[in-house]
């Protein structure tokens, strides 16, 4: 019991990390569910990395990193929309171009400064163990905004995931709600980078929601599973990092990916067992 609780009860930084982590898990579960359902994993990945030059420039000139991340994300989405609308290229080509361009730009900016190597690690992997109350409050506000957007847009988001044409004919503009969905994913990425870093926020977006999709028959249930898996990953990831002195962000994401594979294997075993039961019932 001591092993499970004391790290959080006797270290305020661990408690802050857990609170921030739970908020990140809720935000990522909601946004990640739609990333999975709408097949937006690539744009989620691109956003998570594409914000790097924005953050780097912001830190270089002394602005908050979150502001730079927001500008980076806006540039990314704007660029993807422009290329997709003004050319015959598909959106994944546009996403790939912007993704690699922005990431390279970020690395170039970072490499110009000697004092930046520590910052780069911080940007990529977050600093969940150094999270303060203001950052937790920003994360809380963002999680509330994401939750409210998901509730308000539940019907159009569902229709959009089912069939964008059906959404349009039902009177819900598919372009408007697609953009709201992208905005929701962008907020998640921008705010969560402080906690788990830009590289790892992507893992939190897709692994818990992916495991949830394997478990659930309904979208709401999928989202709840994703939240549970996310929170478990945060808790056990922090615990492992504390006891074994490992990088916290990476430990959390390793746990979440491990949970995905456990669910995946269990689901496969279960469906295999169901098939063999049906076969033996047939033989009788």
């Amino acid at each position, binding site marked *: 019991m001591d092993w499970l609780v004391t790290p959080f009860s006797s270290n305020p930084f661990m408690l802050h990390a857990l609170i921030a982590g739970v908020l990140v898990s809720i935000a990522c579960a909601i946004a990640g569910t739609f990333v999975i*359902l*709408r*097949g937006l994993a690539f744009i989620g990945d691109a956003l998570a990395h594409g914000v790097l030059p924005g953050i780097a420039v912001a830190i270089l000139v002394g602005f908050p990193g979150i502001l730079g991340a927001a500008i980076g994300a806006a540039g990314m989405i704007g660029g993807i929309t422009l290329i997709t609308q003004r050319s015959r290229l598909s959106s994944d080509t546009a996403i790939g171009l912007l993704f690699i361009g922005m990431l390279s730009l970020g690395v170039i900016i970072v490499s110009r400064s000697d004092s930046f190597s520590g910052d780069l690690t911080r940007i990529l992997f977050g600093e969940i163990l150094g999270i303060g109350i203001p950052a937790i409050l920003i994360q809380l506000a963002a999680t509330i905004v994401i939750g409210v957007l998901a509730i*308000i*847009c539940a*019907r*159009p988001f*569902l*229709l959009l*995931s*089912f*069939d964008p*044409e*059906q959404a*349009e*004919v*039902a*009177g*819900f503009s598919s372009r408007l709600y697609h953009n709201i969905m992208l905005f929701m994913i962008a907020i998640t990425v921008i705010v969560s980078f402080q906690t788990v870093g830009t590289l790892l926020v992507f893992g939190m977006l897709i692994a818990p929601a992916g495991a949830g*999709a394997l478990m*659930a*028959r*309904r*979208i709401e*249930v*999928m989202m709840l599973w994703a939240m549970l898996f996310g929170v478990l990953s945060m808790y056990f990831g922090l615990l492992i990092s504390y006891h074994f002195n490992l990088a916290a962000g990476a430990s959390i994401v390793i746990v979440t990916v491990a949970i995905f594979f456990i669910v995946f294997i269990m689901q496969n075993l279960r469906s295999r067992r169901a098939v063999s039961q049906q076969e033996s019932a047939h033989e009788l």
Partner: protein
Amino acid sequence: MNCKKEIIASAKREGEAFAPSADSAPYVQAKRLSIGYSNEVVVADMSFELRQGEAIALIGTNGSGKSTLLKTIVGLLPPLRGEVSVFGMHPGSNPRRIAYLGQFHASGFVLPLRAVDVVRMGRFPSHGLWRRMGHEDDEIVLSAMRAMGIEKLAESPLRSLSGGQQQRTYLAQVLAHQADLLILDEPAAGLDAGGRELYLQAIDNELRRGVSIVMATHDIQEEPALCNQVMLLARRVVALGTPQQVLTHDALLETFGIVVFGDQRHVHVLEATHGHDDKERLGINKPRS
């Protein structure tokens, strides 16, 4: 089969079905309409009207313009030239009154959705973002599922259903909409004999209630028999009129380039690029009557 014949026969009986009034405003009206995509006209210069309680069947090969016309009527594609109005307004202005069944549901296999969730989506247009669904909506959803014979599959995940069961689910969604105008793209695709009968019965019921229907189909018998009008399409309007006027050997040959007549087994092939003048050269003869 008897049941199907009864449905068709009863639809033809005068006085029973909804009687469209000649002076009511048309639900759908197209004047010299050209449809297609931004850089490609698919069908040019088409004109037709559809009034309350009427149905029109669009018949043609793949790529003949059926789906393009349906998408133009629901407002997914803008008209290239000419005019089209739905309920006297621009297409897409009246989502509550119009239900659309497209051909493809790209994500249908990935989504964690039960059949009943898909049918419930049919209630969204009349409820918008906010209005809560009530007991009445549950009743409507249930009766739509019963009409398509899938009430026992309500809790089943969509991805576990067969193609035909999924099509029944999508049709139930259209029925649950309780729209005034149904736009159906190959609605009977993948249905088994039982599903087909339920579907024809449902269409007949809708028409009796005064609902109008535009359907794209490959069927030249049962579905057109329920319709007042048939339009044959081959990237142009080959013929437009009552089923009896339109579904002739020559018109079908021109539309499909091939005609198979029931027991007679006369198969005529006409290459798409050849006109009627080439028939003799290709050795095509009319079937023995």
